[in-house]
């Protein structure tokens, strides 16, 4: 095991990594920006080095200062957390160049699987289903032929596009004929090219992701799946483990995730994300090559410490667990408490937390870097805490989370706690009818 590691992140994940290290007897160096001088991970670290001004580009993304800090303090490895440099192949490569272990996959893996088109190809090679998509469509006849083969609904997309423009959902041949030329013109106006392609459109999919772990020497296991369908503008807000799917689908989706990770000889913690339709078909969407924000839900139901597992694999000690030893017990729900005002379109609510009281009692875990008197810097994302509830069943986990959130007191700023209470109380949520459009469809007045 390492003697000393450097944590190249901030906030709750820096604290999470620090806690994992301390339990393993590993010393910690935390690097921080001037805005985080009084943050909990900085105060708790064995050593702390200021690496720049508040703006992330000059501090948490400042590769040179971070590597200098690691070399100066004699750290052997760098944990990048999530965000910032966690999925930056150049950073991973620079670490190795300076004989520092990057706690994550190989740079080359991050590069390959990070490219959307390449990731789709790799998934296909591994026999993992991807959403059926067409080549560029040269005319309406080509579009008709593709629709005939794949079936509706389909979505027309601009080859040069992005950001939702030039996209049309079509439900029938008649629809397609009507929309094709419009979409072409919209694409030409917006992106300078009328070229379109089509993909299978999933109505009301679930977002289900599989936690995988590889030792980098061919062995890959999974820690089952999470349901992260509750999202607002593609930002996850509440996650659950396990998901509400039948055992057959659970088996097929975990096998697919492991096949993909094995195909690229994956090292460390990773997540394969899938969209699942109402008929139980699932399609690979992307792979995240880092520890995820919502990893505690998996930890609560499997009782393994995924961050410590990352350390072990990075230190060349291999996985501490075999697939047979990973089982799921009970149900876990995580809510992301952010400094946003749900009554005013989730606008950021930076400021000083005058008083905070976290929930406790059976089955509750709180991962948070804030404390009474903590000032939330306006420079970074608004996540201030993750509250996780575990209970023997989903129903009990919901009740426990409601109980925990009503105990929670955060004064001085607005948070998403009241919003989460409404989600937990929603009848569709309670019976598990949760799809990626849940917030737009069920929570918008």
């Amino acid at each position: 095991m390492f003697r000393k590691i450097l944590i190249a992140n901030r906030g709750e994940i820096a604290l999470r990594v620090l806690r994992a290290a301390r339990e393993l007897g590993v010393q910690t160096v935390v690097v921080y920006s001037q805005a985080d001088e009084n943050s909990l991970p900085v105060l708790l670290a064995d050593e702390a080095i200021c690496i720049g001004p508040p703006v992330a580009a000059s501090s948490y993304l400042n590769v040179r200062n971070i590597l200098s800090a690691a070399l100066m303090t004699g750290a052997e490895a760098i944990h990048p957390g999530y965000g910032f440099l966690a999925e930056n192949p150049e950073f991973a490569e620079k670490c190795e160049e300076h004989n520092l272990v990057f706690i994550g996959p190989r740079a080359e893996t991050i590069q390959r699987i990070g490219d959307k088109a390449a990731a789709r190809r790799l998934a296909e090679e591994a026999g993992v289903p991807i959403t059926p998509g067409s080549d560029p469509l040269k005319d309406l006849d080509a579009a008709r032929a593709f629709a005939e083969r794949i079936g509706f609904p389909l979505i027309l997309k601009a080859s040069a596009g992005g950001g939702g423009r030039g996209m049309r959902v079509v439900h029938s041949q008649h629809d397609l004929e009507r929309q094709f030329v419009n979409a072409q013109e919209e694409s030409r106006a917006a992106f300078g090219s009328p070229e379109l392609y089509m993909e299978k459109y999933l109505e009301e999919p679930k977002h289900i992701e599989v936690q995988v772990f590889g030792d980098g020497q061919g062995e890959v296991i999974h820690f089952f799946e999470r349901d992260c369908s509750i999202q607002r503008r593609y930002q996850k807000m509440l996650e659950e483990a396990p998901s509400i799917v039948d055992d057959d689908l659970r088996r097929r989706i975990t096998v697919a995730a492991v096949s993909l990770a094995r195909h690229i000889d994956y090292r460390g913690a990773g997540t394969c994300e899938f969209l699942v339709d109402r008929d139980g078909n699932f399609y690979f969407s992307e792979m995240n090559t880092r520890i995820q924000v919502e990893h505690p839900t998996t930890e609560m139901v499997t009782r393994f410490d995924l961050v410590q597992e990352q350390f072990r694999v990075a230190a060349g000690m291999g996985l501490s667990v075999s697939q047979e030893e990973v089982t799921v017990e009970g149900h876990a729900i995580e809510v992301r408490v952010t400094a946003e005002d749900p009554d005013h379109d989730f606008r950021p609510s930076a400021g000083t937390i005058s008083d905070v009281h976290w929930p406790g009692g059976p089955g509750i875990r709180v991962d948070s870097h804030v404390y009474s008197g903590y000032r939330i810097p306006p420079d970074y994302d608004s996540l201030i805490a993750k509250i996780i509830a575990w209970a023997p069943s989903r129903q009990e986990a919901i009740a426990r989370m409601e109980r925990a959130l009503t105990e929670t007191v955060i004064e001085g700023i607005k948070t998403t706690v009241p919003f989460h209470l409404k989600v937990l109380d929603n009848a569709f949520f309670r019976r598990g009818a949760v799809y990626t459009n849940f917030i737009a469809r069920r929570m918008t007045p």
Partner: protein
Amino acid sequence: MDIKDIKRLLDALAASEVREFSYETEEYKLNVKRGPEPVPMPPPQAYAVATQPGGPQAPTAPESGASAVSAAEAAAAEDAAAPPSHWIEVTAPIVGTFYASPAPDAPAYVKAGDRVEPGTVLCIIEAMKLMNEIEAEASGVVREILVRNEEPVEYGQVLFRIEPG
């Protein structure tokens, strides 16, 4: 109006969107002004100024309201031995190892009492095997050197104090 009234007034204003408030009677005049929101975190060193990594320092007196306040607080909090407020602090623009001289057996670039001009090399900070010369931005006399040779320095750490002139 007594202290309780003022406190109640401030509480009421804090709960509202009001940013500026004036109230005048024959006896007194009250002006309340709130800072911009969200208020940025004042830098730990009131005089530390961020510059390009590897580039020279540009120490300036604080100008914005926020840093002026923290400068005042910092000054009040420090003991009587605080350096004169017009001295310029040269801070580390990068993380690395501080070298006072160009080579182990060479004399230091500067010592206390030396006069420096803009562009005078004050020290080297080694980062990633690269030697970065740190230059003076203004002319003056070096009054304090706060780091020992070969000591690691972090971003924003005060290296020198210079009396301008």
